[in-house]
């Protein structure tokens, strides 16, 4: 029963996301799976944001209000949407259709079986590992689940304490993830930190689908699947989908945003612009560092509009405005909450030292190649950059490289300039790197040339 309630909570979040995505995608260009994945991510962010805003109002039963609003809107949409997905159009699950049946080459079938089973093992592990035990990891329990639990009990026993609990935050971290835990606790009727952890494998699954759909036009089904498997091959990445840290959530939103940015600059379809801007704005609602990720997206947007876009000046300004507007709606409310309540932030003291440059890179080398559980990923990434530098700079691939360099530049800036944070950040360096990891894998998928063995066997 508790699982049914949990799924109801996840489903309502998905419904809200679906309504938003449909608003931006009236032409239903996304395939059903991709729509589901993106809808969930947007829904999770939106439902928590709505909860936060409603908690600030002097009303009760916030979760119930959201549920009624979402279900009502969804029903109205389904009823009135005459050209809707559900009535007039056959739902397309096209991204996987005929995946095995059309294949004749035995090698391809075996390769597919190997890839799919490998992926299945990893995703199963992620779900089983995450949902078989209560929260145990330090930051996950102390920062995210604990806050969600406190909101749940505050709402139950002392509704006047909810806002006070919202203010009780480490380093002014936004409360997106904690509110998602709260949302699921509310649905389950108990603060069950074992099942609420399911959001992380679900997020991972959403990212994998978006990643696959993003890479499929460039590499085909088989090639895209190979890179999805490659994405899951770094143990630290999969591991983070099981422990409940916010870093995975932040990573998923950032990576989804970057993938859609790439698709937007390739296709110039407005849907992809929103699919890029929305997740990036949500990163600032997950963690404070999300503001930097959002800023990276903004720099890329400006760079593209200045360098390659053939849009009119008015259209460019509109896009910039839309991107900024999303931050005002999604990220700014929390920043204002922090500001007005004078919540303590993470303060660093500027003390630039170029000496730390070498120290930083020596440590980074050790962490990336030896101690960080990244497997062979960084070796291959280094090889790709070395061997295919020209392809990296050509066409739209340039923007992915720019995103990676901006991320690296930001890290370097922090390490060189804030001495107090260096030791701590190096300690957490592997998870600091997580957001860029899927982007680098996606970039490799776009840059590496295809291996064509026969007409069907193209990786």
């Amino acid at each position, binding site marked *: 029963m508790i699982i049914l309630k949990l799924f109801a909570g996840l489903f309502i979040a998905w419904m809200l996301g679906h309504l938003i995505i449909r608003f931006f995608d009236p032409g239903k260009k996304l395939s059903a799976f991709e729509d589901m994945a993106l809808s969930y991510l947007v829904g999770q962010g939106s439902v928590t944001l709505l909860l936060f805003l409603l908690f600030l109002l002097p009303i009760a039963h916030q979760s119930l209000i959201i549920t009624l609003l979402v279900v009502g809107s969804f029903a109205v949409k389904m009823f009135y949407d005459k050209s809707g997905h559900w009535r007039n159009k056959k739902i397309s699950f096209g991204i996987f259709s005929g995946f095995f049946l059309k294949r004749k080459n035995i090698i391809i079938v075996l390769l597919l079986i190997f890839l799919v089973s490998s992926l299945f093992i990893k995703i199963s592990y992620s779900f089983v590992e995450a949902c078989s035990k209560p929260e145990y*990891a330090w930051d996950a329990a102390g920062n995210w689940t604990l806050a969600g639990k406190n909101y749940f009990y505050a709402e139950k026993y002392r509704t006047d304490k909810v806002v006070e609990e919202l203010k009780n935050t480490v380093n002014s971290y936004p409360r997106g993830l904690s509110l998602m835990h709260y949302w699921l606790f509310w649905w389950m009727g108990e603060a069950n930190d074992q099942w609420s952890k399911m959001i992380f494998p679900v997020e991972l699954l959403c990212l994998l689908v978006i990643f696959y759909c993003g890479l499929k036009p460039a590499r085909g089904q088989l090639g895209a699947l190979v890179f999805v498997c490659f994405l899951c091959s770094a143990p630290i990445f999969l591991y983070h989908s099981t422990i409940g840290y916010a870093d995975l959530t932040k990573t998923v939103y950032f990576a989804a945003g970057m993938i859609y940015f790439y698709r937007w600059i390739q296709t110039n379809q407005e849907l992809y612009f929103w699919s890029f801007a929305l997740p990036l704005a949500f990163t600032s609602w997950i963690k404070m560092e999300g503001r930097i990720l959002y800023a990276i997206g903004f720099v890329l947007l400006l760079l593209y509009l200045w360098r390659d876009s053939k849009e009119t000046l008015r259209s460019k300004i509109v896009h910039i405005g839309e991107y900024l507007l999303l931050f005002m709606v999604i990220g700014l409310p929390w920043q204002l909450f922090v500001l007005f309540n004078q919540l303590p932030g993470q303060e660093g003291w500027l003390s630039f030292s170029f000496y730390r440059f070498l120290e930083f890179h020596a440590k980074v080398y050790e962490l990336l190649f030896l101690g960080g559980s990244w497997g*062979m990923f960084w070796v291959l990434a280094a090889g790709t950059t070395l061997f295919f530098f020209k392809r990296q700079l050509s066409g739209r691939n340039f923007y992915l490289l720019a995103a990676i360099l901006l991320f690296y530049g930001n890290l370097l800036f922090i390490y060189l300039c804030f001495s107090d944070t260096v030791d701590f950040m190096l300690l957490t360096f592997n998870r600091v790197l997580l957001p860029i990891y899927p982007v680098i894998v996606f970039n490799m998928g776009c840059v590496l040339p295809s291996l064509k063995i026969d007409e069907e066997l193209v990786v």
Partner: protein
Amino acid sequence: MKQIDKYLNMVKKQAALIVVGALVMCLIVGLMIVNLPEEKLVFDLADNVGLWQLSDGSRFREVDGAVELIKGPGQLYLVIPHLTFFAGQYDVCVIEGRWPIAFDQAHLLFISPFNQQFNFNVRCDFDTGLAGGWNKRYLDIGSHGAWQGMIKGVLLLPGEGADRIRLKSITFIKPNSWTRLKAIWSAFIRYRDPLLGTCFAMATPILAGKPFNPFVLPIVFGVLVIGGSIMAGVRIFQADQRISKITAIICLVITMLAIVTLDMRNNVFYLKGIMRNVSLYWGKSIQEKRGIVVGDRDFTDFMRFCDENIPLDVRIFNQVSIDLPGTPPNYLAAVQYAANLRPRFYDPQTWGRKRSYYIFYKPKDHKNLEVFQEQASKTAYFDVAPGEKLFQKIELWQPSQYLYQVNIWMRDKDINNDGIELALVSKDKRTVAGKAKYVSHVGEEAIFRFVPSVNFGKGEEMFLQIENKNRKPVAIGVAFGELYREGALVRNGKIINNDLSFRLIYRPKNLALFKRFNNEAFILMDQEKS
């Protein structure tokens, strides 16, 4: 022509038969070679009762030619003290048993000239395999650095999670190739539990397995360097571009093969992880699961006991005893404390009028129970000039406490700590109520204690005075956020921080027993209301 074709076909058939025959012969001979008879030392536990011992409090019973070990209050282990043989005689150890938890962690310890007593740091680890049925676990002990000279006893920790384990025998083997392969393979795919008892400030290298990376990485790096050199050479000498392309493809294929190999091994770990989770957690209540995850069922049960007994509108002090050194498992316990209890909602205006509650779990010193008031880590440093004084306003909120310890951050480790004077002064900032003594330095943190203790009343305004009596400035760190008590940091007569900035540790006094969970875990409360 037909005859020639016929002849050729016949020759082909004969050749095929010869090849198949040769292969079969090779296989048979190969199997015979790899499966040669082995020299074994079998120690059957059921047949040798009396020649081995169990840990204190643990017991056993004989079942179907095996022994079932039953865990006592402490750790479960088995010692065979007088088993003596030369290490070079046997390279593989086989442990036959039946474990209730899949892929639990187990260890074999031994005494050799390199370690004169059983030392946990010198051990052979193995996982316990699938749950439920009889398993043989192969240990490649010959590859262990300390497995040399005369072995004079072995100790087996048969599992970390299970309460009852059945064991049949421990066998030491001079292995043939087949047994050796099994032992090497077992070590290669050994499941390492990534989760229990670890603080994840940084995700530890878990599934990639450290020993493999240093082996593979130099090869892959070598390939990349050679490939890069060839490509650079092609560019410099303007040679055929196809050389570059082929080089790049070869390098990538080699790297991809390495990745696939690593990944396949990871998949084995993931499968083992799934099976372990199912056997360990399936069908248990969330409370039981919490106990398993924390690694201390007693503790989680005690937390539940606290949650059920302490009112919801009071303040609770103490997460766990301050004596715990702050190692990862204790952080974990602290987190579980928070995760296990419902939050207590008290109002700053009224909470002082209610009794406070103190949770103690396995305190080292029952006479001197301590209250830990954690605060934010330092966020800034001030250079305090020689002779300069910093004042920290403090106020006692609980009548049942007194100030015991102050921790301050000092960046310069070479500083003379005796030159930092720390005292408790009254509101006029002149009358000294007590002085603190420097105790020790942990990292940048200097610890001072008030011995004897200084008593001051609730609501009485006092100042903590920090004076630099050194001849050079001292950088002292202060916190600016996440504060639990009010105060004000004063420098040169000006308030520079309206909140408390140093870590204070209070001790309770006049406490009464509220509820007892057991002798090592209890709840105390204030005897007096304010």
